């Protein structure tokens, strides 16, 4: 065997040494006038507010575009004027008139007019993309919208809805993403084949909000620049950069080093070790996302309301909230999240194995049954599914967990091929109708429905409750309307196909020199303009 001498071996090793000699020491800190946020931004597929419906996109558009009305950062519970300074509702509940503020300008320099507002709403209806249903529910369609939504003078916007809806519902819709006001002239200057500027607005902004879009680099970053002429004053930080950092471990290291200001995806195992760090502060505040399980009544046993109730008694809500969901979730068992008009702290179910067994026996399932529980693989769905599996077994129900990608699970639910699934829901706008319309619209469970709502997915036929829900949407008296939603929620919680479990808390880790982080309930309220650095 041929061997090299020791000196030759050493020489060869020495040649490899430069690998270990790289050492440019790095001092980390984000620029003083910029906010750098780490989060997963790969859900962004468009930044056109007329079609955008993904969480990151809505959050970004919230900061780019001013809306007709708003819930502002100063008081997140009070509806105030946005682009419009005042509004009136005719007594028939069908005609709404908005007076547009004078002196507002888009970033292009064009004035903000009632015509911009009308056109922005019209294009949502005519394009009828994902968010189109929010406005078409008012009876607007591509043929009538230009008549029913129009500028009656340069500073007056008039809307006519086809049915009398509760004014709060229509007005709340004017605070949502579809009421973002787009610069008509700029958008039309970039129009392609009559697309209302849609393809251009996907990656550009034509706005009058607190920021303008500098660049969206897919899977890399989204950069915004402050609008110094914003009607509520220039934002405190000149630039906001959302960096795509999908891995929580990487987010934590970046935050500890000061290379980012905010980490938006830390899991409990990442949060615990940094909880006491002096340069880091963790803020927690309620969100409005519901986490629930849905039962398909096509799967035999679930057709019996006693079985559905038994299932609800075979979930240990509090144990989950106290352990792996600690701080991030709290028990909430109705379809309206706390913080919403009409919400109620009605939590009737807790783990009760004996009670559940009794109900199962009465329903003809004394030995339980088998069921497939679909859950996506993102945290915390697998843990929730496993906990449900363990406690359902106590009542004799044998649960098999089927894990899959989130879109796969949604596909099963929309196709009604699932038996039971764990899933979450985020409201679309700040009015109880947003959730009621989805969870209680069950007058048509045929194979060709107009929309695949919650009851349709679960094959839960409820024409009476649906009518009740519609009456609540049209009730003009605020007090009465609130009570109607409370009653509706109790019925759905008691008998419905949903096992309501939790409402989320947002847990945000940030550098301790950050001030004014807004405690928004959801993406429509995640404002950047109030954030500053000391």
């Amino acid at each position, binding site marked *: *065997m*041929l*061997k*090299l*001498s020791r000196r*030759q*071996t050493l020489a*060869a*090793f020495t040649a490899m040494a430069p*690998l270990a000699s*790289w*050492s*440019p*020491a*790095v*001092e980390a800190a*984000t*620029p003083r006038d*910029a906010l*750098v946020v780490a989060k997963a931004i*790969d859900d962004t*597929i468009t930044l056109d507010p007329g079609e955008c*419906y*993904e969480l990151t996109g809505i959050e970004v558009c919230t900061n780019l575009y001013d809306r007709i009305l708003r819930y502002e950062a100063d008081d997140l519970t009070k509806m105030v004027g946005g682009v419009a300074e005042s509004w009136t509702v005719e007594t028939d509940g069908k005609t709404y008139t908005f007076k547009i503020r004078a002196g507002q300008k888009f970033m292009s320099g064009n004035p903000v007019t009632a015509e911009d507002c009308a056109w922005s709403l019209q294009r949502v209806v005519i394009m*009828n*993309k*994902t968010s*189109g*249903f929010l406005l078409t529910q008012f009876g607007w369609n591509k043929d009538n919208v230009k008549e029913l939504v129009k500028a009656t003078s340069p500073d007056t916007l008039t809307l006519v809805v086809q049915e009398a809806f509760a004014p709060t519902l229509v007005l709340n819709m004017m605070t949502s993403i579809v009421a973002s006001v787009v610069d008509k002239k700029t958008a039309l200057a970039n129009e392609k084949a009559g697309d209302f500027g849609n*393809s251009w607005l*996907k*990656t550009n902004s034509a706005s009058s909000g607190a920021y303008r879009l500098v660049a969206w*680099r*897919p*899977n*890399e*970053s989204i950069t915004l620049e402050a609008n110094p002429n914003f009607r509520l004053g220039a934002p405190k930080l000149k630039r906001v*950069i959302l*960096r*795509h*950092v*999908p*891995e929580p*471990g*990487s987010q934590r*290291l*970046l935050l*500890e*080093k000061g*290379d980012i200001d905010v980490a938006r995806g830390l899991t409990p195992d990442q949060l615990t070790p940094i909880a006491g760090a002096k340069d880091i502060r963790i803020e927690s505040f309620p969100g409005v996302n519901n986490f629930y399980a849905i039962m398909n009544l096509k799967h035999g046993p679930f057709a019996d309301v006693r079985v559905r109730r038994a299932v609800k008694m075979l979930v240990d809500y509090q144990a989950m909230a106290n352990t792996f969901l600690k701080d991030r979730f709290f028990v909430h068992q109705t379809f309206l999240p706390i913080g919403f008009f009409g919400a109620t702290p009605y939590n009737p179910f807790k783990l009760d194995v004996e009670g559940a067994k009794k109900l199962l026996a009465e329903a003809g399932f004394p030995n339980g049954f088998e069921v497939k529980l679909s859950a996506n693989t993102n945290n915390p769905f697998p843990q929730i599914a496993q906990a449900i599996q363990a406690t359902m077994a106590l009542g004799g129900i044998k649960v098999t967990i089927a894990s899959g990608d989130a*879109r*796969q699970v*949604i*596909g099963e639910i*929309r196709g009604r091929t699932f038996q039971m699934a764990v899933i979450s829901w985020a409201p*679309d706008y700040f009015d109880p109708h947003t959730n009621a319309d*989805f969870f209680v619209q069950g007058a048509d469970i045929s194979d060709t*429905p*107009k*929309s695949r709502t919650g009851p349709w997915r679960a094959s839960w036929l409820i024409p009476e409750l649906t009518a009740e829900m519609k009456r609540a949407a049209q009730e003009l008296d605020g007090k009465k309307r609130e009570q109607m939603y409370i009653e509706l929620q109790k019925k759905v919680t008691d008998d419905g196909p949903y096992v309501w479990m939790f409402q989320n808390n947002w847990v945000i880790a940030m550098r301790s020199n950050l001030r004014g982080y807004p405690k928004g309930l959801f993406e429509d309220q995640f404002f950047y303009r109030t954030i500053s650095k000391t």
Partner: protein
Amino acid sequence: MARRVAASLRRLGALLFSVVLTFLGLTCVTFAIGRFMPIDPVIAIVGDKASQETYDRVYRELGLHEPVIVQYGNYLARIAQGEFGNSVMTARPVLEDLVRVFPATIELAALALVIGVVFGIPAGVIAATNRGRWPDQVMRFLSLVGYSMPVFWLGLVGLLLFYAKLGWVEGPGRLDVMYDDIVAPVTGMLTIDALLAGEDEVFANALGHLVLPASILGFLSLAYVARMTRSFMLEQLEQEYILAALAKGLSPWRVVWVHALGNIWVQLVTVIALTFGSLLEGAVLTETVFAWPGLGLYMKNSLFAADLNAVLGGTLLIGAIYILLNMLSDLVYALVDPRARDQG
């Protein structure tokens, strides 16, 4: 002369035929995977909350109402015209996306390959010449580590040590935010573009971001290259010509590094080409940990979003890479092996 030209043309024809066939096979398999995945591409675009009317419209817009074979035919017709379509995820043409993400991967892969080859080959040679002794044991251990250590974990530990604790390198991402948009993209590789623009600070920052993920990928390549080099060298060192060379009085150093190593280059070129190919495919986990917007991450996100145009575009690019590398390694064979040259 005419016979030689005819033979060259035949070879060229055969090559073109195999390239076209490979591409067709690639599109066919990828298209089938995309169509039969349990993810609804319409939901990927319109989301869960869209009305049935919107869902149906997009379903038709995507051509999903056509029979699968017609969809495939339409797709082939489009790419024959150079039209790869738009990506659902990024709202941009797929070609534009690939031009953006691929340079990030090339930059990472090239440095990783350099590390893998520069250190892997000597490591393999040293291991072979010290078979059974400590240098060999060390190399085999390192190879085993490189083979069996999860790259995800290695990346996080690397970040913890070299970025968070020691501060030797920059963190995840390709560049610090303050250096964004300073250098105009020319090649798309930030280090090269910064050098071209004469921006030393940007270059240092980009290199600081690049060095750790490249070293980790390089270490994995090193493990493979070193193991293969060791094995090829052991075979050579058993040959009689080695004994003859030593008997004639040549120094062991020269025998090993010139004669034995010289004889394994053809095999090594194949190993290096394959390594480079797998690095260019993109390293999904490394790109995730290091928030590196390369081809691997792009392909993973496209697959999960059932973004068929993006998946097919990316697959064709990867196919093209392998075909190109095969052709390149054939060329290099001819350079390092006179027999291959003569046959040509």
